[in-house]
């Protein structure tokens, strides 16, 4: 469960202050499926980063699963990210020198989970995402769809309660994009909260709840 209260995010570029988020109030129930749309520069990515604790609100409050996470230290936010949040990016962001399996295992490696335990979970994920044959391939040897599947497998390796996807299909063709979206929606069906930022009307329309942003504000919030 997520609650944002009067969140502002102001960037200072030179003398100028850029309001990326203006007075955003947002309540997200656990297990929901939300899309965020809006023109370029409207603050979608900034909102997602705040939700994922990669960025902090300049003012306002953020409650995650009943805990105020606004003022946590860097070490503490890292722990919250690790335990609760999974990120999926438009440009995949895999480590090129690691194999698909090692990329998927990375969150567990960073968390200090024992190799044997990691192996079991990675095998499970490779199976779930149809990547068994690609386990030892490096990112350069994989297609866009495979890359994004590896990235999603990595995002859910530690069973996060929220998956945040910033234009996850933005770099894929339509068919592959649909496959990737299906994987994300399957996660949501199993109970993971899913937030997708997208420019694609068709994709955005699939979510239970559709948020539209403009100039740092939520201008529309429709459910059903």
């Amino acid at each position: 469960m997520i609650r944002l209260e009067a969140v502002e995010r102001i960037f200072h570029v030179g003398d100028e202050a850029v309001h990326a988020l203006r007075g955003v109030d947002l309540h997200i129930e656990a297990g929901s499926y939300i899309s965020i749309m809006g023109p370029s520069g409207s603050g979608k990515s900034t909102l997602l980063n705040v939700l994922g604790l990669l960025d902090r609100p300049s003012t306002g409050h953020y409650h995650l699963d009943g805990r105020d996470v606004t003022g946590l230290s860097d070490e503490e936010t890292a722990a919250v990210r690790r335990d609760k949040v999974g990120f999926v990016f438009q440009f995949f962001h895999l480590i090129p020198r690691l194999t698909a399996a090692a990329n998927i295992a990375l969150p567990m490696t960073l968390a200090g989970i024992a190799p044997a335990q990691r192996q079991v979970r990675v095998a499970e994920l490779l199976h779930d995402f149809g990547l068994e044959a690609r386990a030892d391939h490096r990112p350069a040897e994989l297609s866009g769809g495979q890359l994004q599947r590896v990235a999603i497998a990595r995002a859910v390796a530690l069973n996060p309660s929220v998956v945040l996807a910033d234009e996850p299909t933005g770099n894929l063709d339509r068919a592959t994009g649909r496959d990737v979206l299906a994987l994300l929606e399957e996660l949501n069906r199993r109970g993971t909260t899913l937030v997708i930022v997208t420019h694609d009307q068709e994709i955005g329309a699939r979510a239970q709840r559709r948020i539209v942003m403009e100039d740092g504000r939520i201008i529309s919030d429709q459910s059903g």
Partner: protein
Amino acid sequence: MRPRDNLAYAWQTLRSQPMRSALMMLAMAIGVGSVVVLTALGEGARRYVLDQFSSLGTHLLIVIPGRAETSGGTPGVLSGVTPRDLTLDDAAAVARSRQVARVAPLNVGAAQVSHGARGREAVILGSTAEFLHIRHMRLAAGRFLPPGDPAHAASVCVLGAKMRSELFGAAPVLGAWLRIGDRRFRVIGVLAPQGQQMGFNTDETVVIPVAAAQQLFDTPSLFRIMVEARGRDSVERAKIDIGEILKARHEGEEDVTVVTQDAILSTFDRILGALTLAVAGIAAISLSVAGILIMNVMLISVAQRRSEIGLLKAIGATPATIRRLFFTEAALLSLIGSLLGWLLGWLASLGITWLYPTLHATPPLWAVLAALGMALGMGIVFSLLPARRAARLDAALALARR
């Protein structure tokens, strides 16, 4: 992150940029290697000199005319008073001390030595029968200078090994006559080859009675008096004794310097030790240059790997974890680099020892440890800044761009 995983990750990163990693290791290796080689050379030189002196015997004292300003050193700076010459009578007086086992007066000069058509310039040593024992020399053939009155200028000589072969070739030499300067001498003995000793090569000298040398070089005085004390323990007492005897003979003037083996040894030890240290210091500068190089390259690496660092943060890496990753990378680089350098330095030292067997160029342990420690320290200190910069990176910003 588990230490093993941390190490594996850093290792993988280094391996993914083999050229960059190899160059940084090379820089480290050259730094460490030069410390090792240069200190090995310094140490080799020090040991060489000490061995040279030790081969002269440990209870040797040398009486030198003139007063050294500083005690314990070789007299270089002499006081204003013109010193009284040392004479054969002085030597005889010193020999009467109860602390003294043997005395050999010494005169040194250069003269043309010739036999028939062959001739060459050589160092002529004028001394007595005792000289053989005091200088620990051995004979290859014949006899040494006969014992007896040192003032008697017998026309006999003993040849160094090389002098013998140069002047006589394979021809018999004992009993032959040769010419030194304008005088004729009969060869009564040949020294066993022993090479360089204390700056001059005894193989290329000719030894004649001290009185003959005084006539040859037209001087009533002596260059040195070599004294052998009764034992190791009596060296200090002998030194005092000799000083008093000669002071009494020289009308109360303390115008001689008595140098003991220990004093010479420690002087050389100090000079060469300081030299080794200085050379090690210069080499250490190249080490710190390597450290700065590592810092530069790591800083560039942080800039290049912004999106990777951002991603690591996004999937839950704490700032401490990221710091440790970069730190491990730098530590690995400097560890491997310095071990490589140590190996290189060690091989080079072996090579030098192989080329110049008299010089035992072994790197001293302290230098090896200091170089390795410094290299590691450099790598670690200079990785702190890049590691901190990586840990503080704004992840959202780093991930926004491709």
